[in-house]
């Protein structure tokens, strides 16, 4: 059964905060939910499906369903694939709606990483285990080595440069493009336009990634309301529907043929494009997960916007800048400049795609006649193991 056209993105909301010392994480989830429901013209009582991931405090979905007073939930999903979870949730919500399991699905994300607990790269490990443990099976062979998001993505960039001749200048163009968009977003964490030189001159964090190759660390949240076609048509909002989705894990599988230059987008992307019946050339706007510049480059290649290994050339010279280049991306400023709430960027990728399809993006970055958009996410680390998710959405005329 295809999900094509079976579910609509009726409401979206990005929490305006980027620093929340005065709010709880549960509160940020609920405020985001309220915003997305108001955007759709629906109420908490209309929600009959609830979706959240590991950032939701408490016991699976139960604590948040209880906190928010969702009285009519008959479908729950707490799939956890890190930052890509919310794109997976969009896919699963469409499946549940198509199967008649719910008709108004609420997806929320929120967190407060700025309020202590920023993870340093060095130390690691915590207290020594007493006796034998029974945690993640890879733990004893990985966590001891001081891997963080920075250096595990750094390893991908290093290998990509080795195999394909990708340069730091090319990676820097991705940040430059994001900053050109962020200057128009009043809520963006970083609003200054930066140059390639600014990126190259920022301090080295994890070779070859500089400070400005990294995303921002922000508190905040977001929510998306997904509905059946019948509910969507009863609302007074532009009709934006999901027409294709794919998801895939990419792992190490015994360490044979380790390949850190491709992502799970090589599987989730074609699945989504096939279901939607469109090709990368048809896409007018792309939300591409941007934890680091290298994340964007690899996913653009793997989704088929250019040949493998040619991502460096593709992203250079402003090709990702709306109104300038061929593939306008992350027109809200993305995780690189605008917002990466609780270190998970998946939901903001969906939200900006919906803004573009509604024609509600900032006029300086709005793509003309934007009727087809993609949102793609990576959760976990491209350098260790990750979950990829792709969603293709269209505006119904």
């Amino acid at each position, binding site marked *: 059964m295809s999900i094509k056209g079976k579910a609509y993105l009726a409401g979206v909301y990005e929490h305006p905060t980027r620093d929340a010392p005065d709010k709880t994480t549960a509160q940020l989830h609920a405020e985001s939910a309220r915003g997305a429901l108001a955007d759709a013209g629906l109420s908490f009582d209309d929600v009959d499906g609830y979706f959240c991931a590991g950032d939701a405090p408490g016991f699976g979905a139960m604590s948040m369903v209880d906190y928010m007073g969702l009285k009519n939930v008959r479908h729950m999903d707490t799939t956890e694939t890190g930052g890509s979870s919310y794109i997976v949730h969009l896919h699963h919500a469409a499946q549940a709606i198509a199967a008649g399991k719910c008709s108004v699905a609420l997806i929320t994300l929120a967190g407060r990483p700025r309020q202590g607990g920023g993870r340093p790269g060095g130390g690691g490990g915590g207290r020594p285990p007493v006796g034998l443990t029974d945690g993640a*099976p890879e733990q004893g062979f990985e966590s001891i080595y001081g891997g963080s998001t920075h250096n595990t993505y750094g390893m991908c960039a290093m290998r990509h440069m080795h195999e394909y001749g990708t340069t730091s200048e090319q990676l820097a163009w991705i940040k430059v493009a994001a900053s050109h968009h962020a200057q128009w977003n009043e809520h963006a964490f970083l609003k200054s336009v930066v140059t390639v030189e600014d990126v190259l001159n920022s301090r080295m*964090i994890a070779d070859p990634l500089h400070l400005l190759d990294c995303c921002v660390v922000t508190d905040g949240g977001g929510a998306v309301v997904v509905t059946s076609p019948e509910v969507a048509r009863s609302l007074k909002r532009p009709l934006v529907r999901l027409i294709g989705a794919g998801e895939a894990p990419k792992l190490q599988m015994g360490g044979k043929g380790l390949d850190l230059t491709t992502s799970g987008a090589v599987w989730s992307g074609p699945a989504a494009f096939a279901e939607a019946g469109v090709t990368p050339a048809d896409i007018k706007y792309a939300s591409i997960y941007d934890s680091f510049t290298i994340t964007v480059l690899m996913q653009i290649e793997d989704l088929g916007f250019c040949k493998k290994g040619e991502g460096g050339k593709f992203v250079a010279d402003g090709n990702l800048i709306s109104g300038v280049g061929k593939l306008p991306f992350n027109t809200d400023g993305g995780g690189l400049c605008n917002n990466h709430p609780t270190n998970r960027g998946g939901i903001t990728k969906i939200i900006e795609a919906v803004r573009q399809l509604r024609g509600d993006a900032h006029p300086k970055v709005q793509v003309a006649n934007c009727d087809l958009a993609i949102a793609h996410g990576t959760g976990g680390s491209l350098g260790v193991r990750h979950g990829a998710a792709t969603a293709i959405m269209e505006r119904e005329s």
Partner: protein
Amino acid sequence: MSEIMTRPIPAPAVNLESKPFFDAAEEARFLIKRCNACGEAHWYPRTICPNCHSDDTVWEESAGEGVIYTYSVMYRSPTGPYALGYVTLNEGPSMMTNFVDVAPDGLAIGMKVKVKFQPTEGGPPVPVFAPV
């Protein structure tokens, strides 16, 4: 910036499946797992072969030699720069590790490296790799 990189390593989590590996590490022996059914070596060591799913897997002593697949020198570190990377063992599998006894600018993809064991804080020693 050419000082030799070192990094204190915390005690690894040891479970029932990995205990023989860390017991051998105490004797500076480097073990990998190989599957009798399909013949493939794998990393990290498991009871069930991730390639063919047979449970006929056996420990095998390895010379711990291989080449650097990739690496990244981490500068955001309170204990000084250190190198995270993957080494592709001569037996086939690639494994995450730290590269040691080398300066931050002394590493390269494809460089030959060999295992050595580094003591940890309150746990068994763990494998790290140094250029040969």
